[in-house]
């Protein structure tokens, strides 16, 4: 009497190869996705040069740093004045010198103005007094704090070129960057602000 022996089904070699290929494909896709997941980073474009807007920018920056986020700040146009450490007229054209004299900055005699109700600096002076009374950090303190906590400070090379602001006039932490430098950080950030 003939006995039929049923063979235990073995996966064909072809099936294993297909599975391996699929796993490899999925791993590659996962690696690609992981690269696209945003970092714990906040990127802020600082375009404005007024006291109130700068306060907002630096309070958000230091707050984000306190939450454990990385922070990139990109200073362009009027915002460049926020990270000035000195004014130098050396080698500047007449118009560049005029711009230096007329723009407010931490190193200018009048300091920074308000975006509203500045009244030639009287508004800013009153605001600073009120902030002092209420024990709010000064803009200078917040900028130094952001640096100490590890914010990355970029200065816009193009604005510097147009306005005649040299790297020596900016704080030591500032690195020159272009729009792609900013975008590289912004694309990997969870939050990007333009102030």
């Amino acid at each position: 009497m003939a006995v039929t022996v049923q063979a235990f089904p073995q996966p064909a070699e072809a099936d294993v190869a297909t599975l391996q290929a699929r796993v490899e494909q999925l791993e590659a896709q996962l690696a690609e996705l992981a690269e696209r997941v945003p970092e714990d980073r906040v990127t802020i474009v600082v375009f404005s040069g007024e006291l109130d807007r700068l306060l907002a920018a630096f309070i958000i920056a230091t707050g984000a740093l306190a939450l454990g986020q990385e922070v990139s700040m990109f200073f362009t146009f009027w915002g460049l004045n926020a990270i000035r450490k000195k004014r130098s007229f050396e080698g500047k054209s007449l118009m560049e010198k005029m711009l230096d004299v007329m723009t407010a900055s931490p190193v200018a005699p009048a300091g920074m103005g308000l975006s509203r109700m500045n009244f030639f600096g009287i508004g800013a002076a009153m605001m600073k007094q009120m902030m002092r009374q209420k024990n709010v950090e000064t803009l200078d303190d917040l900028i130094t704090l952001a640096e100490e906590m590890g914010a990355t400070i970029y200065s816009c090379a193009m604005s510097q070129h147009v306005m005649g602001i040299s790297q020596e006039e900016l704080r030591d932490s500032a690195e020159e960057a272009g729009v792609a430098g900013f975008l590289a950080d912004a694309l990997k950030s969870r939050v990007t602000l333009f102030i």
Partner: protein
Amino acid sequence: MSTPSFDQELDVRGLNCPMPLVKARQTILKMQPGQVLKVLATDRGSVKDFQGWARTAKNVQLVAQEEVQENGNTIFVHYVKRTS
């Protein structure tokens, strides 16, 4: 509710946003994982700030928050634990 035990205390009364959080972070980074920091603040915003911190940061946990009246002022007390 019984008062949670803590290892270190930080007084940021009188300081405003974002300083209570900034100082708390600086202090807790110098502490050991598992230790609890007690923070005394007068900033009303600090209540939500500390909740946000605990939600966002991976290494801190909010143990408790309470309000205490002291000479007509409200003191916001936060207990934060460093987890790693």
